[in-house]
């Protein structure tokens, strides 16, 4: 080795502390050193000449530069070595400035010793340095720009102008970003949209810019120059046929805070953010399915009809409620309403009274006329056995598919358990009959008094020409318990009692009734007993109060009617004498652990018995199938009390015979589950007869919307409307309907409590209204893979959430706004057409206070430490605009320090002062809202130290800037670092301000930090220039300082792969698995080398030998 050592004085920065003469002498004595020089600035042309001369005259093959940190001038000397053909790893650096003279300026002796060691180490390292290979990589001449604000658009246009293909991905519905929402811009006070509009248009029509709006970048993989990008396109639910007429928005019942206007106005679920949006197509804000819709077994858009009811549109609401469910009136009365259990509003206070609203819709929104018969398209007649909710629903669905369906019902009336299992005081007969009539009006034939197995059989149905049979026979007998005394007079069964009563018989119950059971049927039997003449009804069940199985409505209404309930009792014997029952003997019990079906068996408590006396005992402990239909139905098997079916096809063991409802249950035995089963059965029959899967048997569910706890916090608790009922005791003697329904006023107020948690309610009003047939609810999110050479991140900022500063009253007080909201109010295209109207009363505010540094320059846990850079001039701009439009306005700006650097900014500040805006240096502790809507501002004047309380009409908070959610998301996807407040960290704050830690990824605009519009544009163009310079040659060389794996040493443990922050390392598969480093991606950080347990991975320029040689001199 022939090495040179070049010592730099750094203009005195080094030589002022370290005596370079003795250091040079020492360097000359080191092994391999053949030349030593000292220069004032080694990085200058003289320094380069010195090196060239030494290489030429002394035959150097390596050299040491002892100067500043290699982060500053490392590339300079590496380039010199490369140009002198010394190779890629011929220079070692000794940092005797930052590492020595700077930190030991007051102790030169120690600095001298340290400098000797540093130079010795660098020379020792040279002995182990060998040339490093570099590779040529070809680059894709296309760039991904993430974010369509002013920075993203500027970068995209600049790139496109050089012939580079640009993919511009925007998360929002339109490009334009924050600037599109501004009124005017400082200091020139020109219209923001007027400046922006040409750029919007230019971007839209530029053939080299491929716009992906309403899209997210979800993955970026591969090496710089050939990044593979996954773009997820979210559905707009409005296709390209949209002509922008706005008819859809006119009928949309959902109003939501308009995010484009920062909440100072409302918009509909289908909307376009602003008139000249790009793209101009409307879109539907649809987060998924509301929890109510997801929970409903038939997936009724409860949200849809609730939203329509809130607007008083009852007929449309009925259309939504009845579309999947032919029994909206029934379900509005007796449904178990799991929709309410899941309702998001329940996480704020109480769930929306969805069932009550549905009942109102059915009672007041259903058309008076019956529907016309539907045309029959298919020749195959279909038989449905059982005219309950499952069978009748299947019949309606099949009629809608185009089949002729015939329903065979064993009883003399249709409706199944709805008709003969639910007492009239809960479900009036005419209500049910009205909905049955709507089904038969469609062309469904109903044959009552026809019992399967007796009057006909499944075999005879096929023989009569039916091509498929749907069995929905229900569970029409009570279960018994194996206890003594059941055959005594006075022992009744609930199902049979209720049926007898419903069919017009006058069943007799005694005066004192004991009902065994605690579910809805038990309550129905007990309450029916009252109406049949009982004076006293006691329910006894095995469950305790907390696990009682009846619905809350039954329990509450039972209480009102003075049904007495005894819990935790297991019946052991019916008491009586002479064949006449006189009561029930129970044993106390607890409930055991649930079995695989969730049922908890009773565990008797030894020796604890209770006797309840009564002249009538009614058993309501479950229902059972009446399996007489199996005669003449070979292949239809009843097992464990249920007809066996394939859940995917709903088909029984016999081809062409399907089953559903309580008799073939796949969930709880409820009416709504039976209706769902009917829908599934009809689809299954349709698929079977057509020989292909035309419709899914089970609904394809969309994602359920879940609102985070934090977003529910601000909602004001509101009481749920309570439905009026008949008087509790008086009604025991009447069959009149107990629950009286909501009044119109109550139902609309109750519906207005809905949080619109999915935004779009799926009411489909827009589908009907759209003249261009552009609404498409079948759109799905889809992924697109694109390849780009470079990436520019321009995802912008978001306004600090001023709600975090609770004492300032933002969002609590109507007249406390942020500057962004004020910008919308002052904008000619804003909700007030540029008129300043305070939100509480629409009056023009006269006294206005603007508070600076809200969430900025704030060391508390709820704020940010940084200065947001634009707020002083943002407030100044708005003050100026207001003063010019409303000269009488008195505006005070409470500031921490006024910061107005930048061209013409200080002048503008002075101008606005001269316009009469008052600037007060002060901090606000609290803002109070007075009853007239005015605001009391408590301010500490930090100039005078005095405190004051002043009244204002409007307060505007200059909320600071934070990295947007999109910025934080893209940082995660791209693998770049973020700094405080969520801004993306640049590679070097001074020397590489638009580069990121990842090669080929650049950043600009407020994603990098707070800045104004011209600075964002300048930075965007700088980022574009960086991308252009990278891609202009069409190829690039990989860096020398990258990691490499020695296959012979690697054990394939994968530690390096897991540790690499750049995802540059992959593990090969198979027995000889080993790691492979992609030099295109590797940034030479060395983490993998440090983590590698065997030393297989070595970092170029920092091999173990090099580092140890330097460190152990």
């Amino acid at each position, binding site marked *: 080795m022939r090495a040179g050592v070049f010592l730099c004085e750094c203009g005195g920065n080094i030589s002022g502390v370290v005596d370079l003469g003795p250091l040079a002498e020492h360097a000359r004595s080191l092994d391999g050193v053949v030349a030593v020089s000292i220069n004032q600035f080694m990085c200058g042309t003289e320094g380069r000449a010195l090196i060239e001369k030494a290489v030429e005259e002394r035959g150097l093959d390596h050299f040491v530069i002892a100067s500043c940190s290699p982060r500053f001038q490392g590339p300079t000397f590496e380039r010199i070595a490369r140009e002198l053909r010394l190779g890629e790893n011929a220079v070692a650096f000794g940092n005797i400035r930052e590492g020595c003279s700077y930190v030991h300026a007051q102790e030169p002796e120690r600095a001298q010793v340290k400098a000797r060691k540093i130079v010795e180490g660098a020379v020792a390292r040279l002995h182990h340095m060998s040339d490093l290979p570099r590779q040529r990589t070809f680059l894709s001449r296309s760039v991904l720009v993430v974010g369509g604000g002013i920075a993203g658009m500027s970068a995209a246009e600049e790139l496109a102008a050089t012939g580079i293909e640009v993919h511009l991905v925007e998360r929002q519905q339109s490009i334009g970003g924050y600037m599109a929402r501004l009124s005017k811009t400082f200091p020139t006070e020109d219209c923001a949209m007027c400046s922006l509009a040409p750029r919007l248009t230019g971007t839209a029509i530029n053939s080299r810019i491929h716009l992906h709006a309403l899209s997210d970048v979800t993955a970026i993989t591969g090496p710089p120059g050939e990044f593979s990008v996954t773009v997820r396109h979210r559905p707009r639910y409005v296709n390209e046929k949209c002509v922008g007429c706005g008819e859809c928005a006119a009928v949309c019942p959902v109003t939501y805070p308009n995010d484009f206007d920062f909440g100072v106005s409302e918009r509909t679920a289908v909307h376009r953010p602003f008139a000249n949006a790009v793209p101009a197509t409307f879109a539907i804000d649809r987060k998924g399915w509301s929890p109510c819709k997801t929970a409903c077994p038939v997936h009724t858009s409860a949200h849809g009809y609730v939203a329509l009811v809130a607007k008083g549109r009852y007929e449309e609401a009925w259309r939504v409620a009845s579309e999947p469910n032919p029994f909206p009136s029934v379900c509005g009365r007796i449904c178990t309403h799991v929709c309410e259990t899941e309702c998001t509003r329940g996480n*704020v*206070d109480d769930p929306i009274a969805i069932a009550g609203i549905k009942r109102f819709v059915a009672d007041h929104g259903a058309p008076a006329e019956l529907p016309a018969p539907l045309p029959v398209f298919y020749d195959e007649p279909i038989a449905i056995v059982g005219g309950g909710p499952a069978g009748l629903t299947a019949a309606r669905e099949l009629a809608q598919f185009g089949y002729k369906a015939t329903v065979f019902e064993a009883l003399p009336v249709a409706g199944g358990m709805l008709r003969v299992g639910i007492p009239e005081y809960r479900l009036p007969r005419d209500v049910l009959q009205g909905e049955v009539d709507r089904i038969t009006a469609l062309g469904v034939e109903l044959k009552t008094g026809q019992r399967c197995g007796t009057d006909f059989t499944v075999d005879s149905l096929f023989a009569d020409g039916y091509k498929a049979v749907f069995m929905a026979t229900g569970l029409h007998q009570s279960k018994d318990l194996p206890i003594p005394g059941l055959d005594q007079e006075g022992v009744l069964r609930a199902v049979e009692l209720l049926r007898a009563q419903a069919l017009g018989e006058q069943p007799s119950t005694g005066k004192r009734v004991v009902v065994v059971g605690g579910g809805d049927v038990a309550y129905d039997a007990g309450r029916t007993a009252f109406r049949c003449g009982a004076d006293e009804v006691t329910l006894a069940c095995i469950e305790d*109060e*907390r696990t009682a199985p009846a619905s809350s409505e039954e329990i509450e209404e039972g209480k009102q009617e003075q049904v007495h309930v005894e819990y935790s009792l297991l019946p052991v014997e019916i008491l009586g004498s002479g064949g006449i029952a006189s009561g029930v003997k129970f044993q106390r019990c607890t409930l055991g652990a649930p079995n695989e079906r969730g049922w908890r068996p009773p565990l008797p408590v030894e020796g604890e018995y209770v006797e309840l006396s009564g002249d009538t005992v009614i058993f309501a402990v479950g229902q059972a199938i009446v399996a007489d239909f199996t005669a003449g139905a070979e292949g239809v098997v009843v097992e464990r009390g249920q007809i066996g079916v394939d859940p995917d096809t709903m088909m029984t063991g016999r081809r062409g015979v399907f089953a559903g409802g309580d008799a073939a249950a796949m969930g709880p035995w409820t009416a709504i589950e039976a209706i769902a089963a009917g829908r599934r059965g009809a689809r299954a029959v349709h698929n079977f007869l057509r020989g292909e899967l035309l419709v899914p048997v089970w609904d394809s569910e969309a994602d359920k919307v879940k609102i985070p*706890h934090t977003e*529910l*916090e*601000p*909602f*004001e*608790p509101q*009481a749920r409307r309570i439905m009026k009922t008949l008087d509790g005791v008086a009604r025991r003697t009447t069959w009149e309907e107990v629950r009286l329904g909501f009044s119109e006023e109550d139902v609309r107020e109750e519906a207005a409590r809905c949080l619109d948690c999915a935004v779009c309610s799926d009411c489909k009003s827009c589908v009907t209204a759209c003249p261009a047939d552009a609404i498409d609810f079948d759109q799905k999110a889809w992924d697109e893979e694109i390849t780009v050479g470079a990436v520019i991140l321009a995802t912008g900022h978001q306004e600090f959430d001023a*709600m975090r500063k*609770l*004492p300032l009253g933002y*969002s*609590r*007080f*109507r007249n406390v706004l942020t500057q962004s909201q004020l910008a919308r109010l002052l904008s000619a295209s804003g909700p007030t057409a540029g008129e300043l109207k305070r*939100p509480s009363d629409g009056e023009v505010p006269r006294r206005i206070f603007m508070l600076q540094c809200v969430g900025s320059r704030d060391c508390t*846990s709820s704020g940010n430490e940084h200065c947001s850079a634009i707020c002083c001039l943002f407030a100044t701009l708005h003050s100026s605009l207001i003063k010019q439009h409303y000269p009488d306005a008195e505006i005070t700006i409470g500031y921490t320090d006024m910061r107005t650097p930048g061209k013409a900014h200080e002048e503008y500040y002075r101008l606005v002062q001269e316009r009469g805006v008052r600037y007060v240096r002060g901090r606000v502790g*609290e803002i*109070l*809202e*007075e*009853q007239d809507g005015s605001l009391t501002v408590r301010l500490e004047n930090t100039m005078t130290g005095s405190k004051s309380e002043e009244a204002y009409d409007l307060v505007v908070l200059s909320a600071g800037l934070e990295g947007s959610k999109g910025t934080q998301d893209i940082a995660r996807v791209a693998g770049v670092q973020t700094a405080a407040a969520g801004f993306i960290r640049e590679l070097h704050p001074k020397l590489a301000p638009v580069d990121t830690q990842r090669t080929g990824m650049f950043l600009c605009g407020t994603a990098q930090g707070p800045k104004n519009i011209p600075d964002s544009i300048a930075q965007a163009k700088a980022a574009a220039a960086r991308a252009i310079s990278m891609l202009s040659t069409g190829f690039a060389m990989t860096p020398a300082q990258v990691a490499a794996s020695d296959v012979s040493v690697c054990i394939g443990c994968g530690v390096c792969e897991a540790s690499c922050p750049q995802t540059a390392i992959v593990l090969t598969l198979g027995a000889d698995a080993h790691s492979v480093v992609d030099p295109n991606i590797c940034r030479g950080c060395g983490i993998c080398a440090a983590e590698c347990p065997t030393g297989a991975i070595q970092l170029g320029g920092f091999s173990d030998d090099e580092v140890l040689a330097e460190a152990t001199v």
Partner: protein
Amino acid sequence: MAKNFTKTPDVPRTEKGVTLFRSCLVSAEYPGVESSTKWLFERFGIEYTVNPDQTCCTGLGYYSDLMPIQTTVGIAARNACVVVDDEHPVMSYLCSTCYAINKKARNILDVPEYRAETNAVLGKIGREYDDRIAGTVQHKHTLEILWGAHDSVPGLIRRRLDGIKVATHPACHYCKVFPDETLGNNENFMVPEEMLIPAGVVCTGAYNEKQTHCGAGFRQRFVNPSISMGVTQKKLQRLAEEKVDVLVHMCPNCHVQFDRFSDIISAGSGEEYPFVHLHVQQLLALAFGADPEKVVGIQSHSQDVEPFLERIGARTKEAVR
């Protein structure tokens, strides 16, 4: 708009091991607060004890400059030892001063030299505040324990409070001394109101001057009465504007300031403050059907609470369902 409300996150239920930390102010001024709390614990099924070895927290003495901090810390350390040894290490404070001073002592006792200094004294009575004690004892305002059981509230309501407008007076020594440890939002403490929502109350949430203290200021009530009462009056005025029916308290010192002096301030100012002051446990117990005298101890109040009790049906047996 009008987002005056914050929602408090759920916390794990405390089933057992609770020491009801008796408060001298509660015992002397509003014993019904303690009896209501015991009554509520029984309804919620929370196992608790009252330890006769527990002594006063001495917070009043310390904050009134009558007592050095070392004494207060020593007493706090002793009380911690007592409850841990009794295997009821969850201290349930009725008073926010007890809560804050014991937590402050907890932090001081984490400093080795102060702990050593304290243990030098405790050693004389055979006790030591060591890592076992420090790691076992838990300091909780009673509201934190009750909030853990709030899911049970709807099933326990026996007397509806429909239409009763309640506002919370957030105790400074709970919300401001350890703001990061406050349950929910320390700037808009909502737990008392949220506990009562199932009874049908109308909540106030944030209101003007909510964060303003009660005015008591320990000895300030006596040495600077005009300042003390001025602060109280300002708050009373704002609550009157809100048309509240009950200001719900969580600290006996605040409770004293408002209940004992409301009528006095009213007489002096000529203003009406037509609402009553109840500790949250008292109002919750009333909603659960408790007897106004035997459990809630309403007879120790200075204000006339009778009209309110009649309004909620607490004077008629039929109202209790």
